[in-house]
């Protein structure tokens, strides 16, 4: 484990910013720390870089406890959301800055500066001052500066959030390439779930100081372990229902019962549950073609988003499901049936927010899957 956070907790006065967070990053891995603003991401970054001494818990780098080690004695590279290039130094001097603090001969240092500027494709800007660079170029210089001393871990704290969309996507690919080429162990901190999913080998999803889920992006997306992950990672239809049977698990939404084959639970029947459904997993059929996992309803709204339609279907008073659809949509007011593949249904207990549906493995899932053509 290159970086390991062990029960990290931090309070600012009475306010609990980070609550018992533990996760690790393997060598060469790119892990995204994902969560809405104010969820404690920045405090974690500060604890890793050493600018915050956590209230409790340990930070380990390559097995060594560095919790009480000052920032300059940790091998952590950092890129912040806003540029921290030293404005009074040239691009080359900025990149050389971290190298000069280590015992690297001047000749070798110059060579390394060239190498890393080449890596970010800015070798022709070596003598430029940061103010002469574009926003994207500055980001790349900062990347070069942060990884030139070959840190144990590279921490990127919202590195793309201050950029416009086109540049953001371009730099995202650039970061992926640089990470691949250098193999630097990276923690990518972001509030943007698309960015996180596109880049990361693994996600650590945070909410309100807590870890809400850790895992591969697709696993977390398809089988969210908590309601927060279900709603934060991608879009989600959320509704409350009542547990009516334990084996197979059956939930009631109004007059409708949804039976999920191959599942069981030890929750008492009659307890409240929360259900999450991905809009892209749902499909619409003409009314009347009822199956076990379907809900009849009425189309209330259609949004044309170009590549797809978002069809809103009211299945119960107060319960509306958004269904993504690429084919021509039904008309408003039409009665339809919304089909729910069982694997797309995430059910959480009402109080503890514990996931009740199994985390289906892909092969296990296929047997529940409807052999229907994708609409």
């Amino acid at each position, binding site marked *: 484990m290159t970086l390991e956070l062990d029960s990290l907790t931090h309070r600012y006065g009475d306010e609990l910013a980070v609550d018992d967070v533990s996760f690790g990053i393997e060598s060469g891995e790119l892990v995204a720390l994902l969560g809405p603003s104010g969820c404690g991401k920045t405090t974690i970054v500060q604890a890793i*870089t*050493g*600018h915050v001494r956590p209230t409790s818990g340990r930070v380990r780098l390559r097995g060594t406890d560095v919790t009480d080690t*000052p*920032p*300059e004695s*940790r091998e*952590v*590279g*950092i890129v*912040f959301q*806003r540029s*921290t290039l*030293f*404005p*009074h130094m040239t691009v080359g001097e900025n990149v050389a*800055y*971290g190298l000069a*603090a*280590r015992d690297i001969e001047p000749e070798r240092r110059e060579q390394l500066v060239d190498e890393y500027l080449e890596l970010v494709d800015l070798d022709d800007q070596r003598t430029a001052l940061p103010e002469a660079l574009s926003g994207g170029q500055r980001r790349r210089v900062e990347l070069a*500066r*942060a990884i030139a*001393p070959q840190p144990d871990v590279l921490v990127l704290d919202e590195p793309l959030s201050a950029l416009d969309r086109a540049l953001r996507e371009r730099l995202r690919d650039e970061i992926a390439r640089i990470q691949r080429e250098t193999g630097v162990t990276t923690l990518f901190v972001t509030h943007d779930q698309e960015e996180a999913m596109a880049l990361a080998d693994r996600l650590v999803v945070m909410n309100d100081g807590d870890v809400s889920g850790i895992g591969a992006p697709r696993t977390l997306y398809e089988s969210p372990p908590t309601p927060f992950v279900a709603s934060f990672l991608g879009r989600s239809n959320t509704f409350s229902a009542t547990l009516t049977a334990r084996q197979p698990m059956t939930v009631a939404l109004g007059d409708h019962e949804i039976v999920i084959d191959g599942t069981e639970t030890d929750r008492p029947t009659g307890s409240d549950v929360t259900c999450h459904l991905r809009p892209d997993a749902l499909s619409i059929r003409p009314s009347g073609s009822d199956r076990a996992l379907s809900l009849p309803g009425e189309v209330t709204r259609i949004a044309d988003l170009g590549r797809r339609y978002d069809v809103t279907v009211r299945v119960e008073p107060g319960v509306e499901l958004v269904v993504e659809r690429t084919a021509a949509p039904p008309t408003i007011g039409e009665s339809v049936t919304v089909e729910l593949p069982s694997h797309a249904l995430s059910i959480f207990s009402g109080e503890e927010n514990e996931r009740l549906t199994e985390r289906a493995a892909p092969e296990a899932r296929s047997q529940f899957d409807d052999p229907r053509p994708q609409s």
Partner: protein
Amino acid sequence: MSLDRSTRLRTSSRAPELLLPALLGGLILVYFALPFVAFLSRTGTANVVAGLSTPAAQGAIRNSLLTAPISTAIATVLGVPLAYVLARTSFPGKRLVEALVILPLIIPPVVGGAMLITAVGRFTPIGSAATAAGVPLTDSLIGVILAQTFVAAPFVVITARAGFGAVDERLEQASRSLGYGPLATFWNVSLPLARGAILAGIVLTFARAIGEFGATMMVAYNPRTMPTRIWVDFIAGGIDAIVPLALALLVITLVVLSAVQRFGRVPTVIDE
């Protein structure tokens, strides 16, 4: 229709938008400039060179040129670190410390001087010990320096503090993470980036120190500095008698100001 007209009205009234503030600002500018012009117009009648070549004037110039830079240096060496601490940390009682920094600015210098006497005067424990050791703290150049430092040091503290405050703390964090300790980071990053503000503060402090009169008069009426000499000359000979030294004082301050602006590349005195 009516909408159209109101739009037109607004555009037509846009041109003299700055008229009122410009007029008011112009008034105070005239008020600043008037005494200068009136005073300088007297230089023709007074013999500046002769006035400056008297031993008394020479001594005053020498004393001022010796004490003001020392006071400024002391204020800078001790004040800039204080400014950095104030810009970077919060601690219980910080408000009190900040009030203490401003205190010498808001009390009349002559009162400040009186307070200094009560602290380091000849008959106080500190003062008598210093006198016994052969370094009297009043009526000496050291007394002048004490008075100047007391009155002028807040300028460099306040200005440098604003300068450090304008330096993004993340730049310092980046420097730390790149392998530099707090001192090296201060030296390599914070200090160069706050340089403009610090230099501006130094200029203000120097100008205040070399022109210091009230506190100096109380603590060290002798040996004479340029301002105390000017006072003595004024009592004896009126306005025309002080023109040479006043002019010299003005020139010294302007030279220092423009030198710092040129070599420090500071666009204006307070731009931060």
